[in-house]
């Protein structure tokens, strides 16, 4: 007990899911600590329990053994201080962009902010993600990238201590994704909140993260390796493309995924995982169609 309390800490986390054939151990002995303001990516093959880790931090799942502490308090239920950006935006389709953010803001600041202050705060967050021009549009009237922006604005508007992102850009095309990654880096620099992001994209992980947590394959998945990304910020994707250090990090992640944690050929999931791992050979020219990337991989 001599160490200072950590910002966010997962200690010896096991989780079992009940199945008809007895409990299925998804995670075993996961130990992770996160510092304040740190950007951490979780990477690994499909089914390795990345989302499960995120859901435990979010409070949507309860660890069977071990636990999660945020600033010394145990996490055992979901809450707005651990805002989640969901993979498929999860906006309420019957509300406009503004109203979607408003729902979150009213819930968090309903007592502490006046009406005008809330209005200003909603507009501020929407303009952070450059969505102030389409505040009154409903989700079905805007593009996938714009929906994800609103999802991020909604999460930011809760003023979370930790922002949890579950493959936030997975469903977007490469150009839009690059754009949002830049926006995210900018916002995170300004707000300096802790971000935990799940990704399948090696380039995205290296570009955005301070640390990359690489997970072993399930069942009973755990932390395989942690890679510190020591690249100066602000990071520029064009400049980094020729940076040997950057390519070295990329190489390390790829080695982990394809050599150390290669999925056995017998596994029916092999096809799916290789398709999901989008590894572009060259980042300087992001290809507009994600399908092409899949073929390249």
């Amino acid at each position, binding site marked *: 007990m001599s160490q200072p309390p950590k910002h966010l800490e997962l200690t010896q986390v096991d989780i079992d899911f009940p199945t008809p054939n007895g409990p299925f151990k998804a995670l075993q002995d996961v130990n992770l600590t996160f510092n304040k303001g740190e950007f951490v990516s979780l990477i690994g093959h499909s089914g390795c329990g990345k989302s499960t880790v995120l859901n435990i931090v*979010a*409070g*949507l799942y309860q660890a069977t053994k071990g636990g999660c502490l945020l600033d010394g308090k145990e996490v055992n*239920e*979901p*809450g*707005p201080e*651990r*805002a*989640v950006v*969901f993979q*498929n935006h*999860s906006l*309420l*389709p*019957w509300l406009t962009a503004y109203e979607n953010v408003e*729902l*979150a803001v009213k*819930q*968090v600041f309903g007592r502490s902010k006046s009406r005008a202050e809330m209005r200003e705060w909603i507009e501020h967050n929407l303009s952070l993600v450059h969505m102030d021009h389409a505040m009154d549009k*409903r989700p*079905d009237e805007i593009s996938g990238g714009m929906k994800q922006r609103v999802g991020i604005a909604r999460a930011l508007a*809760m003023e979370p201590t930790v922002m949890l992102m579950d493959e936030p850009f997975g469903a977007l095309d490469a150009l839009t994704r690059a754009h949002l990654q830049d926006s995210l880096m900018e916002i995170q620099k300004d707000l300096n909140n802790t971000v935990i992001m799940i990704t399948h994209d090696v380039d995205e992980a290296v570009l955005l993260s301070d640390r990359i947590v690489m997970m072993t394959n399930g069942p009973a998945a755990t932390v395989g390796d942690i890679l510190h990304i020591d690249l100066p910020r602000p990071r520029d994707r064009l400049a980094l493309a020729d940076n040997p250090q950057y390519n070295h990090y990329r190489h390390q992640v790829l080695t982990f995924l394809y050599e150390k944690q290669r999925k056995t050929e017998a596994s029916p999931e092999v096809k799916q995982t290789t398709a999901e791992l989008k590894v572009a050979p060259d980042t300087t020219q992001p290809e507009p169609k994600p399908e092409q990337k899949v073929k390249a991989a």
Partner: protein
Amino acid sequence: MSNISINNGLSAFFENPFGHLSRLLKSLLIPLIGLLAFLLIWEIGAKSIHTSLGVFPGPAAVYEQSLNLVDEHNRERDKELAFYERQEKRNAKKLEKTPDAVIKVRPYTGKPTFFDQIGTSLITVMTGFILASMIAIPAGIVIGLNSTLYAAFNPLIQLFKPVSPLAWLPLVTMVVSAVYVSKDPMFAKSFVTSLITVSLCSLWPTLLNTAVGVSGISKDLQNVSQVLRLNWFTHVIKIVLPSAIPMIFTGLRLSLGIAWMVLIAAEMLAQNPGLGKFVWDEFQNGSSSSLGRIMVAVLVIGLIGFLLDRCMLFLQRKVSWDKSAVLR
């Protein structure tokens, strides 16, 4: 600009006249042909059916009877007007003689016309339907949100759903007679009986569809609700209700259709002065025009049922947030 568009339209027509013509055919001519064929078969078929009340009414006879019904309605209205005029004059005279005389205004007690009966039926069905919806939607939400409650109530719903109104009616009649006792009742007993029967039979589709709609909320939206820590009420209002709206409306439209069908049977037996009673009275009356008049009622019942469904569709379009969905 408009010139150009007109020209475009015209040139498109000249370039492809058959395309336009065939579309016109499909949208107008073909339903018309169907209708004419139906009328022809009806006319021929009706002539060959001889009942104890004469020949089965064909389209012509039904048209004649519908005019009769309108006439009767107008005559009855005139009588009513005349009655009130006479009464007013009488009262005025009375007042002239003795200024402080107590004046009685008696309501007109003529028999209800066909159109009055349509009105009664509409009021009864809407009251019954609204009562059923007010029970079914909240109950459906509660049952849909809780799988244990759903498991508990589902067998009961399945049991009562197929029960015919005619089976309920004797029970409802007896219960209403026993429970609804008052010296100056606000509603007639026959009205209450019909209304409750309608509600009992029509609440199941709404209840079931609401429950299914509510239990089918996407996991993502539930997670959003949890992360935001919405309380139960906000969760229901902001997330559950809007996402279940399409299913609720499917249920409501089925319910209204059933309510209208049940109503006619209920009115026949409960003697509520609506369309059902009209049909029953004409049947008991047994004059040579009875079958024609019943046939008018049949067509009107069909038409009103159709219009009620259109009204619900219109309401659904108003309420639905998903403007891209095709509603029909």
